[in-house]
């Protein structure tokens, strides 16, 4: 274990454990959501959290920011929110000499962890302000492009039931999220634990376990995880199976899907798979990683057609069907019984 890569991997594992532990001190349950948020963070992607109000989405993001020594900002999306409110704007300022000049006043996007709360309440125009920031980690204001500080991690939340006065995220915007997590309602034991933890005299405190540089280093480390050819092929075939016009499309996709997952979905599968593999003590991405991450990585990239919407088909159903139908790639020259 004197190998620097080994040490970094060990650091990553311990960071993951520490992060999970700190988050778990505040967040009750939601184990999968916590793991996937950490996964997205280390993969360098963004997360869309979907759930009814009161499940701790905002708390989760805020706690994450506290455990990492990163600059955090929260944007509450409302219908009257303008792009400049997010990105920032040039203001006219007067210096001591009485000269006036434009000075860029950065918006809340200029942080390292950005909570876009109730992102679907803003207009598409405002939502689109996030596009460049999420993809390029840069914003352009008044013709001037400004880099965002790394690591840059956006966590957006949205409420799936209050659709009145909301603006569903456009496909291009959705595609920028690495994972879309559905925050489930807690069970009985978790609810009791929430009561204990939030109504007592002591508020749980978290400690910082990593800083931005460490996160950035771990993000670079994750990308070194090797992926076997057949795993890549499986991920590609899984994505193709969601495309109704594809030869390998699953039956449900042919019937209910208008647009399948994008290549970004495939990238998300592999990147998140790399983090998962390392977190589980492996140094390679396996097909089981791809399968485990297929729902959060692809569910928001599948656009159902009218029939699918009318039938109440969920993207998760399509993905499960695709995983059932898509088999592991044939063995190159060996027994087919291995499938």
């Amino acid at each position, binding site marked *: 274990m004197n190998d620097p*890569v080994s040490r970094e991997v060990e650091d990553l594992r311990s960071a993951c454990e520490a992060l999970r532990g700190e988050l778990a001190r505040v967040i009750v349950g939601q184990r999968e959501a916590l793991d996937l948020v950490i996964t997205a963070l280390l993969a360098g992607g963004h997360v869309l959290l979907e759930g009814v109000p009161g499940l701790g989405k905002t708390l989760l993001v805020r706690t994450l920011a506290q455990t990492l020594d990163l600059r955090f900002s929260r944007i509450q999306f409302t219908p009257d929110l303008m792009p400049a409110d997010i990105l920032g704007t040039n203001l006219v300022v007067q210096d001591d000499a009485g000269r006036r000049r434009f000075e860029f006043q950065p918006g809340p996007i200029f942080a390292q962890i950005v909570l876009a709360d109730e992102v679907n309440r803003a207009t598409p125009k405002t939502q689109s302000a996030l596009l460049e920031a999420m993809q390029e980690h840069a914003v352009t204001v008044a013709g001037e492009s400004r880099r965002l500080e790394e690591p840059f991690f956006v966590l957006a939340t949205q409420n799936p039931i209050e659709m009145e006065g909301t603006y569903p995220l456009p496909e291009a915007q959705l595609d920028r999220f690495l994972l879309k997590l559905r925050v489930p309602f807690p069970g009985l034991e978790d609810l009791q634990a929430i009561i204990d933890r939030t109504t007592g005299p002591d508020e749980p405190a978290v400690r910082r376990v990593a800083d931005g540089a460490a996160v950035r280093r771990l993000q670079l480390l994750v990308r070194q*995880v*090797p992926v076997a050819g*057949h795993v890549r092929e499986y991920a590609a075939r899984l994505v193709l199976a969601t495309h109704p016009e594809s030869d390998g499309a699953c039956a449900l996709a042919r019937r209910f899907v208008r647009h399948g997952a994008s290549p970004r979905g495939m990238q998300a599968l592999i990147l998140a798979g790399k983090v998962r593999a390392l977190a589980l003590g492996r140094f*390679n991405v396996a097909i089981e990683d791809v399968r485990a991450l297929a729902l959060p990585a692809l569910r928001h990239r599948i656009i159902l057609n009218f029939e699918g919407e009318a039938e109440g088909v969920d993207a998760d159903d399509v993905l499960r069907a695709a995983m059932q139908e898509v088999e592991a790639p044939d*063995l*190159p020259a060996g*027994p087919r019984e291995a*499938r």
Partner: protein
Amino acid sequence: MTREAELLGRLLGRVQRRLAVDRALRWVARTAAVTAWSTLGWALATMAVPIRFPIRAVVAVEAAGLVAGLALLVRLRRPGMLAAARWTDRRLGLADRLSTAVELLAAAPAAAGPGGMARLQIADAAEVAQGIVPRAAAPVAVPKESWMIVACAVGLVLWAQFLQGWTIPGWPAARTAAVIHSEGRALVTIARQIDAAAQTRGLPEARRTAPQLRDLGRRFLGARISREEALGLLGEATRRLETAQNRIERRIAAAGSRGTSGARDARAPAIPAGPERFQQAIRELETLADALQSRSAPEAREDLSRRLSRLSESLDDMNAPASSRRSLEAARRDVELGRLPAGATALGDAAADLRSLERMLGDAQALGEAQRQVQTSADRIARGGPLGGSAATTEPSPAEPVTAPAAAGPNPVTPGAEAGAPPPPGPNQGSLPGEGRGPAPGAPTRRPGVTPIEKHLTGRQGEGPAAARDLLAPGRMGSPRIPAAPVPADVAHENDRALGQEPIPPAYLTMIRRYFETLGTAAP
């Protein structure tokens, strides 16, 4: 990295071998199942159609082919290293560790080796590989098709034990079996005839041949025997008969040439004339010898000499052995000189020579008959020819007791009919009992004025001896062997009634009546 690579290579090499064996076993089992079913089908088909099915050869060839296929497949269809790694990953739930490591090792430059995370991955895979048992990774299982192979093998054994030779009535195989059966009867019949001739005339070769033929015929009659087997047995019998025949012919030729000289040597090996002429000559020689011996020759010496000269010429014509001709010549000289006892002795010698030759000819004729029968049987069985037995068409030999055509039944087989000719029409046309084509045998033809006797002959059609013998000896004087008995009254009455119904002129009718009355009064 070398150690990890070697470790992985060693493990995956063993997995590869086991996978190759397992895969080959499956393929061979599948092929064996198909082959076994086909073989069983082939065996069962022999009950319907007369096809060849050498079970031992077939099973041996199939087994050899499958073993060779197994060896070839194990050698040629060995899965690659990556396939073995993926198989092991999948089988043991190793989360694609080994396959990724194999890919990384294959992709890395040989000198530098993989670096960074790849090296860690390979080390991780090697560590996992250390705990893997190849047997668990690639178990060589008994193919699921095995029960089919076992079932077919049991089926084949049962078929060989209980069903081999059985045929489905009405199908070509049944007809072939009937032909074999029929030829078996013919062989038994000809064997019986040869045996009878051998006993009567003291033919040694025929005596040896007859039991062999009879056994062969009984085998055809008794055992369930295939066409190929029957033809094989007949071929073997033909070879044996040919050998015996050649031996006899050599002996005959030697006897014909023994003691000859000069110009006659050129035709000495020729086969002499038929045995009936020899028998005539022998009888004449014996009569003359008896006469000379008893000094009761009524003729004058010149007459005796002339008879002997004619006999000598006759022997020359028959190409008789030179020794007998010389003895006859000596006898003639003795008679001319009045030495009758010496002449009788010489004639006896000549007769003995001729009798010996006659026995050899009899042997040759019997063997020839047997050979013809065996050949005919072989031809008919090979063609699956008409029923009824080839004995029905065997050419009768003038000197031999020959079998009459098959026993008269409702549809006797026409003697001399062509092999492919259809049998005569009738309700039981060309068939054996129980295999007739008609719905039921027709009613027997009513003979006028005869009360039918409800008595049926038992046995099978064509079975039983029906011999005809040519009596060559002159009739003997003396009392008849069957003593005359008084004509029973009912017979006389029936005779009168029958005569009354016939269109016979009254004068002749009276004469006939008187004749029978005379017979009645002559009886004691």
